[in-house]
Structures are given as C-alpha cells and as structure tokens.
C-alpha cells in the first residue's frame, strides 16, 4: 500500500507538471489528491516516511520557531573559551509575559546557510555555549526552552581535539542539576548524544514527524548489517518515531503537525504550543527546587528495561 501511495503521488506530480505547462488536467489532479488523502488516512505513515519528513528541507528550523514564538529575542554568542558555534542559537526573549532562555540547534535555510550552520551539527563550543547560557538562566531564574534538531554532534578532528565527548558529558550533568524548569522540543532530527545533551529536561516533547534515535538509520545499518542502504529497514526496527518514544514513556507530549508542515503553516502550530509551554513552565515553577530536581531524577531513573531488578526501590 505504501508503494501504491507513492505511485499515485508520482503520477500526481506528473499531472501537476502538465498543468503548469498550461494543459488543463485539474479534474484528474483533484481525483488523485482525493485518492492519496483517503489512502493516507487508512494507512498511517511508516518510520521512514517520518525520517524523510524530519529531514525535509522545507521543514521549519529552530530560528523560524524562535521568530514565531519568542518576542524581542536577543541572541547571545560565544562559549568564552574557544569560539561561537553557528549551529547553536542561544539567547533570551519573551514567550507571553515570561522571559525565557532559548537554545536552538539550527540547521539553517538554503544551501549557503546550511553549510554555515554545519547542518545543525554542533562542535564542543556549541555545547559549551549552551552550558554558559543555561547557567545564566539559572542565575537569573529564567526557564529554559531547548529546540533539538541535529543529525548528531559533529564528528571531526577539531571536535575530538576540543573534547566533544567531554562537552556532551558536562552538558548532561549540568542539566541534571539545573534549578530552573527546562522544556525540550525535538523539532526535526534528535540525533544521539548530540541531541540528548540538550534534552535532560523536565519535559521532552516531540513534533509529530520528528525522530529521536541513538544513531542515524544509515549509521545503524552500517554498524549492524554493514550496509547503509538498509537504512529504511533500520528505521523501522530502531523505534525512533514520536509515537514510539511516547509509548516508552520517554516523551511527554507529541505536537500535531499539519499535512504540509513548512514555514507557511508554522504560525498555527506555534499558536497551539504557546499556551501549553507557558502553562507547563508555570506548573514546574511552582515546585520547590528539591521537588523539581527529584522529579527530573525519577523521570530518567525509570528509563531502561532489565529483568530481576534486584536492589532497586
């Protein structure tokens, strides 16, 4: 049935090209559109469809969420140690009447900017910039909103030299002890430790067609099967969709997306999120710090499946 949908969709594209050339096939186009819609309603997307959507170049990126969600955003640069990582946008701004610290992994729009942003793959200085701004958020008692969208932390010579592993490790312990509420939303790709380094949060949400995984499906297929071309198959067995993670209790909320999720349809999605973000943060702000930290501890403490769990309470 997936093949059938794809067949009709490609036919639809062909018809639309004809239409664009001035040949009137609008009736056929409408018919095909109805067919696709009906088939999609009956057969929900598989994991690979979501991988494709999560990586789609038209999909909104962190800077576009920030633009729509945050008023008077002021960006802050640099890790005060090595440099400023363009793959991470950090700063402060208003969501409603609450000042937030916002951290977003940024893939960029258009080839030139995507290259500049390193396709959302952070170097150690990106994680260290995030750490600096998280500590500042704590100092000024601001809640933190993290937007995750990365294929993974950057794998380069310099990244290793400057301690990519150490940088991520430090982000994990820092977030473990942060005395302000943190919400993380996976908006596109949540790739491995590079995503987790911004996701030790009180609540982790995922956009409906985002993914969150230990590794890219391509990398997974390479390691386990020595065959990157089996990525599609890997995406199924890996269980990386928002629904999967929600069922594992690792994700607290899945945010619905429109059929065509792009910068044009983003404002409506943001409007549906704004009140929930504010309500959630205000609930966590009411907790005494000890309770906030205990709750965060217990949330992640429960993750994992073992038999004969002796010695645990």
């Amino acid at each position: 049935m997936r093949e059938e949908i794809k067949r009709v969709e490609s036919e639809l594209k062909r018809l639309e090209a004809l239409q664009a050339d001035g040949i009137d096939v609008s009736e056929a186009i409408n018919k095909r559109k109805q067919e696709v819609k009906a088939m999609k309603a009956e057969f929900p997307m598989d994991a690979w469809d979501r991988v494709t959507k999560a990586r789609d170049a038209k999909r909104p990126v962190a800077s576009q969420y920030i633009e729509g969600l945050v008023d008077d955003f002021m960006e802050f640069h640099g890790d005060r140690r090595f440099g400023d990582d363009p793959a991470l946008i950090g700063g402060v701004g208003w969501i409603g009447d609450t000042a937030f610290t916002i951290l977003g992994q940024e893939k960029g729009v258009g080839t030139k900017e995507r290259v500049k942003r390193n396709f959302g793959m952070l170097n150690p200085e990106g994680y260290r910039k995030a750490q600096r701004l998280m500590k500042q958020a704590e100092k000024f008692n601001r809640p933190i909103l993290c937007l995750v969208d990365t294929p993974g932390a950057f794998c380069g010579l310099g990244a290793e030299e400057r301690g990519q592993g150490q940088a991520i490790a430090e982000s994990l312990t820092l977030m473990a002890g942060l005395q302000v509420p943190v919400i993380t939303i996976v908006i596109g790709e949540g790739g491995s430790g590079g995503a987790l380094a911004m996701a030790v949060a009180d609540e982790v949400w995922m956009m409906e067609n985002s993914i969150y995984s230990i590794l890219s499906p391509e990398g997974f297929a390479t390691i386990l099967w020595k065959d990157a071309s089996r990525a599609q198959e890997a995406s199924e067995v890996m269980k990386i969709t928002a629904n999967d993670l929600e069922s594992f209790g690792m994700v607290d909320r899945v945010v619905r997306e429109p059929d065509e999720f792009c910068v044009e349809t983003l404002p409506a999605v943001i409007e549906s999120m704004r009140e929930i973000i504010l309500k959630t943060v205000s609930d966590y702000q009411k907790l005494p710090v000890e309770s906030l930290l205990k709750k965060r501890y217990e949330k992640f403490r429960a993750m994992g499946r073992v038999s004969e769990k002796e010695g645990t309470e």
Partner: protein
Amino acid sequence: MLFKKRTYATIQLPKSKEPYVQTEADPITRGEVIPEGDFHKCPNCGEIFYAEILRTTEGVCQKCGQHLRLGARERIAQITDAFDEFHHQMEETNPLDFPGYEKKLASNRERSQEAEAVVTGLATIGEQPCVLAVMDAGFMMGSMGSVVGEKITLAVERAKEEALPLIIFCASGGARMQEGIYSLMQMAKISLAVEAFSKVGGLYVSVLTDPTTGGVTASFAMQGDLIVAEPGTLIGFAGRRVIEQTIRQTLPEGFQRAEFLLEKGFLDQIIPRNEMKETLTRVLKLHGGKR
C-alpha cells in the same frame, strides 16, 4: 586464521579454563570473543606470548609495553584486596524486540561467562573501601544497554547512600545498538546519579581503559572528579572511520590515544597498570581515607 587479523588478549577469567583471544575486526563496533589457543599476539608489536606468561605481567606486553585488554574479573583481581559483587543476576530484556538480540546475548554470556558488560560491587583497595564498577570489553564490546546503565546507576547510588568513593573502569565501544533509544537514555540516567553523588561531596574516579568511546565517553567516563587512563588507551567520541569519512583525510598517528588526550587537557594522569592499585590507594586516602 589465528593471527590473520589484529588480535588482542583478554586474560583468562577465574571461572573458565580457556584463555581468550579477541578478534578485532573493528575496535568500535565488533565484540567477538573467541576461545583460541594457549597463546596471544601483541596487537602493537606482534610478539607472541604464552597466556600463562602474559598473566604474570598483568596483561602488559613485555616487549613494547602495550596494555592488552582485560576482562572485568581479571581487572578486579589485579586492583582489589576484597570484592563483594552486587546484582549479579540482572539480565537484559529485549526492549525493542530486536531480531537476534537474545541469541547474541546468550552467545556472549557463554563465551565471557559474564551476565553483562559491567561488574559492580563493594571493593577494598589498599584497605580503602569504595564502590567499584568495571566494564568488560569482551562482552558485546562493553556496549551500554539497560543493564549496564542500571548497574552503574545503582553503583553510584550505593556510593552516595554509604558515603563511599566511587571508581569506574570504563571500557566500551559505546551504545548497545540493539536497545536503540533505551541505550541513549542510560547516558542521562547515569549522569543524573553522578551529579547527585557529586552534590553531596562524593569522590568519583573515572579510569579509562581501552577502548573508551561513544556514549560512555560522552557521559560518565568524562564526569569524574579525577579522570585517568591506562597508557595507549583509545579514547574518543566518534569512531576513527566516521571522522575520516567526514573530513576526508587520514587521521594522524596517536590521535584519540590517552597520550593525545593528556596533551589536550582532558586527563589528569596516565597510569601504567602496575601502578594502578597503588595510585588509586593514594587517591582514596587523600580524599578522606586514613593516611
């Protein structure tokens, strides 16, 4: 066949009669432990040793000084005076129903005589009590799944409850792929426990042994108050091959080795195996033990 690939030794486990040679097809991702003959080849200089002789040198090549990989039991025997193990029976489930995972676990259990890739317990090192966790690269390349995550978290929590120092010997190829996102979340779980332990003043010594890579490097391996390593240990976040593909050039000799990390400022010290027990004893004494 025996010496065709780069091999390294894992010293005989007390329980089992057979010594092991581990075939190192890919040090990051492969973790096959194959019982072979009575001798081993040094992966660095190629010298061939009888297993018995290697054992008297604590698994260090007498020709070139290479520190060969050790199984957890052998490591514990080398550095502790007493050891009381926790949670020995804890085993993996197959959280993603990953095809073939149970079989893989069973064959690794059979070969390694271990239930999983980490052994934890209460230890005495030079009369100093501590909580000790030792990872075993001979079990699915020390990859971190739910049991590894749970056992290490419980060890950290035990150290906190009993106000004891914590020592973790890391040895891991990184994530346990077959557990997917569950594997990733172990990094968060352990980090929360390490942070809570640190907040109450607990001492955590992280000892990096060959290989320490991936998600273990990006979490508890790099979260110690002290971070030390054995000579020549491979330490890194990304695998060599992945980096070479990314930057399209060959990496320099010695890249991601302990000596490189010391130079870059990510290690406190490099400690040869024959000085490990004495050094740990001194560290434990300096942090609240008796002089």
